[in-house]
């Protein structure tokens, strides 16, 4: 088998898998709607059609895609290194806070407001991603537990700073004043949320792909993740790679925070601004097999379902939260080896490739 044909086969197989996941998601969503709604036809057609219905809803969709892409990339990076760091949520909060501090400072009215805010957010996120990595490398502390605890801490501390220090005093508001216009992303399609965020997400995708597949660091990272024994023999400093993967992932998580607060959806910082979106990156990363170039594609499809569920929650009697059920099922099905016919045979051909999360194609 040549490298090119094997790559095509992998691509076909993974695309088939993702499409199967999508089909299952739609069927499950349809069954849930059928079982719970008084007017299932209206609810389900809202779910399927509403995101495309106007410029405004298309903007909402693309705004979600940008954010989902960033969180998907952040999870992909750590999953490729086989680290279960789950701190993207906390990184988004500290990143959003730092971007807001830049926007609300005198720098916020200069043309530097957006790039500086992003850099500050990435630095904060990277620092927040570094901590669980360092605690694991240095002390052997489980990154799962420490990164989750840091999420809870970040949410509460950032909410406190927003409520007590950034909100206009005496108003009881739970958000900062609006940022100056120089610190808010320009709209690509005027009057919608279709803004600079999607461009940021696509650039981040390209950079993550380049770092993972075209640099020595990326090769080492993937080796540490997929074949730790070999990485060890090759003399790769596994701990340092692990910490750097978690730090880089943290920078993307921080950037997600900046895209949240600087985007046209907010243009300010509010408490609980992230709305539990960050964890949906787990689903994106798993369906994309942790490959950066697949992440925006998966985000596009999932973002559509997400927006459809939101609009269905508003316009019909089926609650938005039904998407959580669909999401859990997709993860279960994609992560497990529920096989399509013929998969077993293909699997035998590719026996030497690890079936783990984000197995490398080459």
């Amino acid at each position, binding site marked *: 088998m040549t490298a090119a044909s094997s790559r095509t086969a992998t691509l076909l197989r993974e695309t088939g898998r993702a499409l199967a996941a999508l089909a299952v998601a739609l069927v499950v969503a349809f069954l849930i709607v059928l079982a*719970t709604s008084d007017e299932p036809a209206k609810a389900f057609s809202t779910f399927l059609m509403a995101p495309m219905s106007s410029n405004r809803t298309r903007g909402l969709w693309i705004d979600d895609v940008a954010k989902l892409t960033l969180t998907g990339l952040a999870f992909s990076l750590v999953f490729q290194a086989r680290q*279960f760091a*789950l701190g993207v949520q906390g990184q988004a909060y500290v990143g959003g806070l730092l971007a807001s501090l830049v926007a609300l400072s005198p720098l916020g009215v200069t043309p530097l407001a957006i790039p500086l805010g992003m850099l500050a957010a990435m630095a904060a996120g990277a620092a927040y991603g570094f901590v669980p990595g360092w*605690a694991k490398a*240095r*002390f*052997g*502390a*489980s990154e*799962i*537990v*420490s990164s*989750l*605890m*840091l999420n*809870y*801490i970040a949410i*509460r*501390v950032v*909410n*406190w700073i927003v*409520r*007590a220090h950034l909100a206009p005093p005496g108003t009881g508001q739970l958000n900062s004043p609006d940022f100056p216009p120089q610190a808010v992303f320009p709209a690509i399609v005027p009057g919608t949320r279709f803004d600079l965020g999607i461009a940021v997400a696509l650039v981040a995708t390209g950079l993550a792909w380049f770092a993972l597949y075209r640099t020595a660091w990326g090769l080492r990272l993937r080796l540490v993740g997929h074949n730790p024994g070999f990485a060890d023999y090759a003399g790769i400093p596994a701990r340092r790679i692990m910490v750097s993967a978690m730090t880089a992932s943290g920078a993307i998580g921080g950037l997600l925070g900046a895209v949240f607060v600087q985007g046209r959806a907010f243009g300010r910082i509010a408490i609980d601004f992230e709305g*539990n979106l960050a*964890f949906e990156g*787990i*689903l994106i990363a*798993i369906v994309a097999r942790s490959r950066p170039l697949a992440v925006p594609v998966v985000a596009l499809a999932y973002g559509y379902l997400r927006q459809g569920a939101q609009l269905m929650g508003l316009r019909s009697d089926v*609650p938005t*939260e*039904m*998407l*959580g*059920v669909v*999401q*859990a*099922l997709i*993860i*279960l099905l994609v*992560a*497990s*080896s*529920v096989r399509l016919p013929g998969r077993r045979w293909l699997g035998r051909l590719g026996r030497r490739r690890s*079936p*783990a*999360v984000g197995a490398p194609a080459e």
Partner: protein
Amino acid sequence: MTELLTAVLSATFLVAVIRATTPLLLATLGGLVSDLSGALNVALEGMMLIAALTAVIVSVHAPWWIAVLAGMGMGALLGALMGLFHLRLRADIILVGFAVNILAAGGTPFALSLATGGDKGTSINLVSGKIPAVHIPWVDGVPVLGLLSGHSLLSWVAAFAVFGLWYILYRTPRGLWLRAVGEAPAAPQAAGVRVDAVRMWSLVASGALAGLGGAQLAMFNYVGFTRDMTAGRGFIALGAVLLGARHPVGALLAALLFGVFEALSIVMPGLFGWIPGELIQTIPFVVTVLALILFSARTRRRESAA
């Protein structure tokens, strides 16, 4: 400071500690069972949340003990589901666990809104049941001994479960198998033990214990269900498993430690109005991270010294 000391040394504080510890301890024991069998159960959080909602909804229509059993059964069922996907379909246990957590985060408000006809936040419109407190008549009013009275029935169950689990794990062949499956699966397999069956049952037991914890949370600590009411307790329990040196008594001590700090975060707002509530709420999480780091460092030092 003196106010804090008086508050901490009072009998009501002890009651608050035991109350805060009970769900944590049950979840920690659940995490311990599956961790010892070699499957890290990151779904404790979701299992507790789903079991809490199940218990609340069942308690509207049935006596409290049926509701508790329903919560426990729901936890066990989720454990079996994890076992199915992890053991049969070879999915990564951490991803399966997270799928359960996501299912819980979205599924509980969804199910609640179906059960109440539209409420997604709380079950305030449901008349739900409560686990009775155990009053021991002959110790009431007696100093020190009197402190034994007035706790949830499940607090007693949890305390007994610590002993029961220790006995099963260290004094019965089945417990030996379970530990062996986690340590070196090849050995029990060679001895004819069905490794996957042991892991399956430990996941089921893990879910049942976490489910009891969820029932305690929604039928004693609070009466009724609130969205995301577990608030990270399942993840703190995961930390407590590691902190308790993967031993039932250690689990008890670790759960008590976190219970003390949770109780502190409940009494502190009344005493120190000037400290923002958000910061007080971070106490259990900060303590968990610090304890985890300190304890891991100590274990690693001891291992490298040995």
